[in-house]
């Protein structure tokens, strides 16, 4: 299959590969997997006290499109607020990377991963607020 130049670029030079320490302040993790292709994606965000995503990292086992999709998302979310990052749609990812229809599920996986990371952040954050209130 012919990959677009952008997919190849992200695949050969993936941005932000790695992980943060689990207990680092403001770190939240989203982990998702696609049964049909066996891809597994871990996406982490590091959120500042102001609610802005300062940094993001990912680790993906899967095809070139899945790696490119997660790499792109980590670039996009930096500097965004949690709410803004939650607006990212798989269609934007697919369009940016010119993914063919059979690879759309890779962009869905990346959207689900950032959503899962945000949900994890909110769960932890909500928990902290509750503790403070008690």
């Amino acid at each position, binding site marked *: 299959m012919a990959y677009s130049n952008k997919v190849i670029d992200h695949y050969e030079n993936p941005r932000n590969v790695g992980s943060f320490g689990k207990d680092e302040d403001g770190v939240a993790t989203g982990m*998702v*997997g696609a*049964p049909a292709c066996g891809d*597994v994606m*871990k996406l982490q965000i590091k959120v500042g006290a102001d609610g802005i995503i300062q940094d993001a990292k990912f680790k993906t*086992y899967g095809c070139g499109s899945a790696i490119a999709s997660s790499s792109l998302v980590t670039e996009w979310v930096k500097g965004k607020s949690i709410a803004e990052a939650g607006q990212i749609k798989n269609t934007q990812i697919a369009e940016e990377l010119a993914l063919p229809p059979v690879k759309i599920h890779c962009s869905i996986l990346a959207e*689900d991963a950032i959503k899962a990371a945000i949900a994890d952040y909110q769960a932890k954050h909500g928990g902290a607020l509750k503790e403070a209130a008690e």
Partner: protein
Amino acid sequence: MQIDFSKNHFELFHLPVAYPIDLPALEQAYREVQREVHPDRFANSSGAEQRLAAQWATQVNEAYRTLKSPLARGRYLLKLHGIDTEEESNTAMPVDFLIQQMEWREAVEGAKQSKDEVALERLTSQKRDEEKRLFVLLASQLGDDAVRADGRETVRKLRFLEKLGEEIDDAIERLEG
């Protein structure tokens, strides 16, 4: 020839609609039905009848393949109960399962790079143990109305393991080839 396209795969082979399956009975029923729909028997029939027979033969083959595979059979049985396994659309899996998947993928990568066939064989046996455990779980879920829907996630997990197995086999083949 009586063709009833409304029969489900189990009924087609006169088997009970249940997860545990009598494989020799399936094989025998398959061979019998296959003989009935063999294209040779329709050599002198009309074009329409031949097309219908070909369509029927395709369905019989599909039914056989589905029932023979423990994973496909589980997926199909869930579908008969109106439960979609969402293998194409649902990406939410238990985190510990995904972490395990990632560790196994890393181990396969590592073994591939260091050309460690023993490690790959060890991974195959670990994968098989996990598969066995999940198939036992799936069988109990499918037989119980109260927890049948949980079989969805078990099928999704088994799908991951199937893919992992393919990758390990590929790696072993490359080392041997």
